[in-house]
């Protein structure tokens, strides 16, 4: 099931410029949007402009090999603002989505949410944190947690 979701996620986004998820610096948090289609025309003609805003730069960080972590990295890359928000609150659908992508069991969800909220400042040390750095920090945190390390094993 986990693999299936990851696969579907990869497929859905395959048209975008994701060379290798979990292998790069990813989007910077709070980067803001660009290329919003002009409101009137976008609305009346319902067209798609080339308005995808995630330029995933190929990075220098090590690559994640775990497929679940790759899915999480990809999700974080386009939703980092909302993931950070839910993390600071200790709940929310974007946090649940991370848990789903990593395959965290219901029984471990509470401690998963708690670890991420407690370590918010470690995961996002500054306002220039990138999604790649945040993913690496999350993986490191979970690895050092006895109950949660199994979800990020390579």
């Amino acid at each position, binding site marked *: 099931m986990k693999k299936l*979701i990851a696969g*579907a996620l990869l497929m859905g986004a395959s048209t975008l410029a994701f060379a290798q998820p979990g292998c790069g610096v990813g989007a910077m948090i709070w980067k803001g949007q660009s290329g919003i289609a002009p409101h009137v025309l976008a609305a009346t003609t319902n067209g798609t402009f*080339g308005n995808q805003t995630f330029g995933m730069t190929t990075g220098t960080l090590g690559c994640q090999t775990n497929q679940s972590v790759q899915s999480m990295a990809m*999700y974080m890359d386009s939703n980092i603002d909302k993931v950070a*928000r839910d*993390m*600071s*609150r200790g709940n929310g659908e974007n946090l649940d989505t991370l848990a789903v992508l990593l395959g965290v069991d219901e029984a471990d969800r509470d401690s998963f949410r708690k670890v991420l909220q407690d370590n918010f400042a470690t995961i996002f040390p500054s*306002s220039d944190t990138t999604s790649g750095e945040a993913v690496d920090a999350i993986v490191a945190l979970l690895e050092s947690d006895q109950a949660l390390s199994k979800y990020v094993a390579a």
Partner: protein
Amino acid sequence: MRTLLQFALAFVWLAPAFNASATSPSDTGNLHLHPAWLTLLHYQPDRFGDGYTGQADDEDFFLSAGGKTSPRAELQATLEAISRPGGGNGHARCRFPARDRWLRQQLDMSLQPANCPAFEQWSEELNTETVSLVFAASYLNSPSSMFGHTFLRLDPPKEDEETNLILANTISYAADAAAHDSEILFAYKGIFGGYPGITSIQPYYEKIRLYSDIEHRDLWEYQLNLNQAEVDMMLAHTWEIRERNFDYYFFDENCAYRLLALIDVARPGTDLLAEVSTHAIPSDTVRWVVDRDLVKEVTYRPSSATKVTHAIESLPSEHRTLAAAIANGYVAADAQEVKALTDEERARVLDTTYDYVRYQSEADGWPREHAAPLSHNLLRERSRIRGVDASDGPPEPAIRDDQGHDTFRASLSGGRLGDRNFTELTLRPAYHDVLDPPAGYRSGAQLQFLRLDARLYTDNDELQIEQLTGVEIRSLSPRNQFFSPLSWQVGFGGRRTDTATNRVFTPYLEGGAGGSWQLGSGTQAFAIATADLEIDDDLRRGYDAAPGADLGILHQNSRFSLLGGIKTKAWIVSSQHRQDQAYLEANWHLGRDFSLFGKFSREDHYDRYRSEWQIGLHAYF
């Protein structure tokens, strides 16, 4: 009755097939005229003549060279192709799994599954149990988005504990516009054709980002009551049209149209496309789907703008001021006055401020140098508060967008202009004005298309076109401590204008911009600077232009709507006269199908006063 008839017809079509020998299903009788076949191939009856033409603008969609105009040739070619031995991704059975399934059922052919690795992997990954029609409502300060937008979401099985709908996939149909096309070209091709329409699959979270976060549109999710076989048929057909081109037309063959076709394929006999005449407004298509009892459950997903507005309104006023101060950088996120609050209160203030800062960064382009460090401080402080969940979001509106008044309006009224009595008939194909019943529509937003006002003056039985509105858009959005939207209006068409001796029909262009302020629940006051241009050879210099102003008050509620104010225009080119007007308009809503309306205006123009009043009935259908 209709279904019964279709069954009967299907039986007649099938009869010859049953008689044919099982090995050679070549005699297909009139099967090529079966509604399900015509739907699967997107055939529409020709406007002139009795033939059919397929809407696909892509020869790869047809197996027969003459397939675009011949349902029979296409059916024969399909039958031959799917009967060929072998398999693999290139086989007709794998390229057209929905046609294959339907023909085999109709002709009682072997249902042995074909070996189609690519299609099988694709549908397994989509892992779909049910399908939801998602409607993106119009957004704040953009009345032209009032038509809405629709797409389909493929929902995974529910019993799965890992079900997460934001990871579900969606199917949409949209114009594939080249990014370098100018806006005018974009509008032109959108209306008259020229853009390929592409069916694309994207994860739902991408759609949420686009519609909820960037465009600030609420989403309504209508879960359809399709069964598994119907869902499978829809997916099989989606596979067939996935990379095929169907030219995109803004008015009829638009995003909503192709999705209706997919639903028709999934449940033959639904015949949603029969509802489409000249235009398919997405919000109307939702009504048709609801009317056909296709909907099991409706879920509301408020946009980030709706959420932040609700969060701000839920704060007590001193906390609201504090949130505004933090957002603007006057007070730090960890300042003493913030720390003095209880955990619960602090969480609300920090959450609201963060959501507001994010909203302003998206909508108003707040600079990152200000917004990013502030956002980081807010979240860091918030992460130190444990055990306080985010507050509940805004409640679901009592009236959904598809439950508002119907969009076609016809009105009959009587009135008096100066000393002449008249009877007026008004037809408006779309969509809503600020005096119509407001339930289900954005307040203060107005969008009218192709409105015709025809008057019969009773003194000499003279029939006159009073006004022909091409397009009229108006957006009144109140400003406050947190939001400062522009209120604006634009319109063009033809109207009667006073030349002191006569009232002549002249083309016009008008626009305006200004502000609006909330006075109370449902009431706002507005001040708009306006500009008018009229071009006609009856005007002394051939044209006239007028800067002006419009000051007024608008009240909207479910029982009645009121609009009153004063307007002034200074005609500066030809007539060089000022035109001052006081106006009052009221609609009394009788349910959602009718409104009684009355209008009164008194005007000072060419140094004389003239009154006009009018009373009548609007009917919506």
